[in-house]
């Protein structure tokens, strides 16, 4: 029989306001196994914890029930308290009488009655608890960063600087990500390349960092501290270790009509290409969709001109398998497709462009060498209209846009408007906005400068329609302050397209068993207190894959994720979750049902000898659980028809005792 102590917390008035805590403590005193019952204002406080420790010793308690806030809040706290007093931490159960009782009920009697039932339920469970001891597993001291944008770069650099090995997997031929495509960066207007490329070089030169460019994660197995990852190195048809990046091939390749994705298709590249001058690694890559040699075996110019003999048309995808202790997702974002926004005539007119395209038009390394020229006729535009919130904050049109605010558009639009006015004072710039959101250091000042010093016209209201007429674009929108509908003849319209997580994030999340929200952003373990960790142990989040972010925020989060990774890799051993599945070999049929549903492959089988009737021995196939791999979901326990498989800490008997206590 257990000797159970019950501790009812007031949580100030949070619980005591709607639950008669004295009455609850009194009522629970007579439950089976309970030998001590107390109440206190703040159980989680130093004094409250001392109260529990003292009671454990004084009453020789073998189990405790704390009636308090959610176990998600303080279960760990009270487990530590119990452990400090010499009690096994898994002999602690929490009755959630705050979030699931006092905070949702107004009636004192109702709240008190429910709190008693919840307390009774926890007591029923703790009566069947057994001390548990967590297993230990080693930590592979190497991290994997998936995505080589500024988020991945910063995370990798920070981890590597702490002395741990890091691999970056980037699906494109170069690292750099979106930031490499940007012209200037708000709010300081320094050039993106000037601040990014040194970091790219740092990454390339860091002895602890390996870059897998033009590669993708193929398979992830294992668990925190012990991930086994298979990386696909896509065939680039150029020997990485031989290519010098001289670029001769990219000048001689006769296939000139390959849309240049780095410039968002606004100009062309060759079938063999280096994305941009400062690419890291600076290695050519052949686009197999366009290369004549690969398509029909005719050409071979690049191989002929390559003095280093780096071209290899027979190259195949290669697979690399590596072990990691931690994985960082830094998969970034993309602007959403404008195809469904017919009202802005994006697909009808070349002169309706997205902000990222505008970014390339302004960039000295872009398709126009930094001259602001209309894509349709190469003429300098004199009237530009920017439209904000295109697809953002779009709750009713889920198939078109996104419900959330994309966060960065207000600032980059202010930047674009300002830069345009700065470079081309003869150009009139109008911005249509719903709200201008500038919550960042020096952000509002920046936006106000655009409006006040650079004379950008900010119009509160949305553009409803853009119609091409001749070589003009008629922009029809509303001016809510003047209470008027406006028709503006523009030369260029720039859409601040909403951003969305990269498409590769969803399948990656599935591989990582990391959860995502409905928008395919990775979910953080706690929105406030654990914002850079995924709920899945060992998976960390960096940058816009977790939610829209600008560069300073991305870099801070990247550093924070790195700090968490370093904290993990610095450990030699990890203590596991002791609430894992356990197979009773005497009852196991060896039927493999459990193995089939186990998402981690934690169950294996062994032939074991058992005593049969009449002094015979029988050999039976039985399931065995690898406690280091098992994550304790309990799926196997239900798949098991005989009930041989049970889950420690959430045993069949315990849950049924809870059911009974609730229904009593």
């Amino acid at each position, binding site marked *: 029989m257990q000797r159970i102590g019950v501790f009812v917390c007031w949580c100030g008035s949070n619980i005591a306001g709607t639950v008669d805590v004295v009455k609850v403590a009194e009522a629970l005193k007579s439950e089976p196994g309970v030998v001590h019952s107390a109440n206190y204002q703040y159980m989680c406080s130093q004094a409250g914890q001392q109260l529990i420790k003292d009671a454990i010793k004084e009453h020789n308690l073998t189990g405790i029930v704390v009636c308090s806030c959610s176990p998600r809040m303080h279960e760990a706290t009270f487990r530590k308290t119990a452990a400090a007093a010499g009690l096994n931490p898994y002999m602690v159960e929490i009755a959630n009488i705050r979030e699931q009782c006092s905070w949702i009920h107004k009636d004192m009697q109702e709240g008190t009655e429910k709190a008693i039932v919840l307390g009774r339920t926890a007591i029923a469970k703790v009566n069947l608890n057994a001390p548990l001891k967590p297993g230990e597993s080693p930590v592979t001291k190497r991290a994997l960063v998936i995505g080589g944008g500024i988020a991945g770069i910063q995370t990798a650099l920070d981890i590597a600087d702490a002395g741990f090995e890091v691999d970056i997997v980037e699906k494109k031929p170069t690292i750099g990500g979106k930031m490499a495509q940007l012209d200037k960066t708000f709010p300081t207007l320094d050039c993106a390349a000037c601040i990014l490329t040194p970091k790219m070089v740092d990454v390339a030169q860091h002895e602890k960092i390996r870059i897998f460019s033009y590669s993708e994660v193929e398979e992830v197995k294992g668990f925190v501290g012990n991930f086994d990852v298979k990386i696909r190195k896509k065939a680039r048809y150029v020997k990485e270790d031989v290519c010098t990046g001289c670029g001769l091939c990219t000048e001689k390749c006769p296939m000139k009509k390959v849309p240049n994705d780095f410039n968002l298709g606004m100009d062309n590249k060759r079938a063999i290409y280096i994305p941009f001058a400062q690419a890291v690694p600076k290695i050519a890559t052949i686009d197999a969709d366009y290369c004549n040699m690969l398509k029909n075996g005719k050409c071979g110019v690049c191989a002929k001109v390559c003095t280093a003999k780096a071209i290899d048309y027979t190259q195949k995808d290669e697979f690399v398998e590596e072990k990691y202790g931690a994985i960082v997702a830094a998969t970034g974002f993309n602007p959403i497709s404008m195809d469904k926004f017919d009202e802005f005539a994006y697909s009808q007119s070349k002169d309706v462009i997205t902000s990222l395209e505008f970014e390339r038009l302004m960039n000295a390394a872009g398709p126009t060498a930094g001259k602001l020229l209309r894509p349709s006729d190469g003429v300098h535009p004199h009237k530009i209209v920017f439209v904000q919130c295109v697809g953002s904050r779009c709750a009713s049109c889920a198939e078109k846009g996104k419900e959330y605010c994309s966060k960065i558009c207000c600032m980059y639009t202010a930047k674009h408007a300002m830069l345009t006015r700065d470079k081309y004072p003869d150009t009139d710039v109008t911005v249509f906005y719903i709200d201008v959101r500038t919550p960042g250091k020096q952000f509002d000042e920046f936006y106000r400068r655009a409006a006040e010093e650079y004379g950008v016209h900010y119009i509160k209201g949305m553009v409803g329609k853009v119609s091409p007429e001749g070589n003009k674009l008629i922009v029809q929108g509303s001016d809510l302050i003047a209470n008027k509908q406006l028709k503006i003849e523009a030369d260029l319209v720039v859409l601040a397209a909403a951003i969305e997580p990269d498409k590769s994030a969803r399948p990656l999340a599935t591989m990582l068993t990391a959860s995502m929200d409905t928008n395919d952003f990775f979910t953080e373990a706690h929105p406030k207190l654990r914002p850079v960790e995924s709920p899945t142990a060992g998976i960390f989040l960096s940058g816009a894959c977790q939610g829209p972010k600008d560069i300073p925020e991305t870099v801070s989060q990247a550093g924070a994720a790195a700090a968490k990774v370093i904290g993990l890799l610095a450990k030699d051993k990890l203590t596991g979750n002791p609430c894992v599945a356990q197979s009773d070999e005497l009852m196991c049929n060896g039927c493999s049902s459990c193995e089939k549903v186990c998402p981690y492959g934690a169950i294996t089988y062994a032939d074991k000898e058992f005593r049969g009737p009449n002094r015979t021995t029988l050999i039976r196939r039985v399931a065995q659980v690898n406690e280091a791999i098992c994550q304790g979901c309990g799926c196997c326990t239900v798949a098991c028809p005989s009930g041989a498989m049970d889950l420690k800490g959430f045993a*069949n008997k315990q849950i049924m005792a809870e059911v009974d206590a609730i229904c009593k």
Partner: protein
Amino acid sequence: MQKITREVLIAKAEELLSNGTVSKVLGLKKGEFSYDQTPAVFTDIESMKKDFVFDDFSGANFSKYLIKETKKGEGKTLVFLKPCDTYSFNQLLTEHRFDREKVYVVGIACDGMVDIKKIKNAFGDGIVSVDATTDTLKVETLYDGVKEIAKAEVLAERCRNCKSKKHVAYDELIGEDGEVISSNRFDQVDELEKMTADERFAFWQNELSRCIRCNACRDVCPACTCEKCVFDNPNSGVQNKAAANSFEEQMFHIIRAFHVAGRCTDCGECSRVCPQQIPLHLLNRKFIKDINGFYGDYQAGEEVGNRAPLVNYTKEDLEPSEAVNKGDK
């Protein structure tokens, strides 16, 4: 089609025993009455010639006995399997319940077995013997002399709705192999589904209230092969030898059906052995019908190694709410 008789099987057994292919034969021997047969293991041909029986009452599914029998001693066990038995045989292999190498399967064609309970329902309990050599059975009764009844009328439920004449596992066959048959086995389930909830409730209350918890259905079921049944296991939380309250018995039948769902081959043994004639197969068939309807056709035991529907999923599976509302159109 070659008529499978006792003599044919004894001759086959003699051949296999004498050439050393098998060391024992799992078969049936006569009980108190000719129609009342009980499983037996024969290690020599003499005892077989003496006690072995095989006739239209030899419907028992032997697969389950192989679990224990194959673990005893060396050598192979000979077993004669009807087409429906081979599905159970495969399902057990899928679940690694015995070693295929220790069994020699002789597949035997089957044109349906007779259910003695149906004869008793027709003529009362005092059945002395039944001559089933032709399609018209001659039934010798204690009180009314010899009666005749067509075999088709007293076929076991599962044979009336035979799902397959095809053997899915065998080492050799006697007689010709047949085909998978499209049967009407879900008709009764359909009828029940079409009823109102109240009518269904009344139907099942009438049926299940007769249960005496003798566990015969569980003991005979080739899918119920647990080392220890949850209902016998004190740690399961549902252990009960005798029901503590009436509820536990519904729980027994629901849980039993659930535990075999996706694994049940619809062999019909549960209904065959039920002394209270509860149509237990209608529970299993409901699960089979739902599985087919929700997740695509699936026949347990069709192939060794198939993944049962309940240890499988697709991302597009229907929601439980859709499952229960499927009938409400």
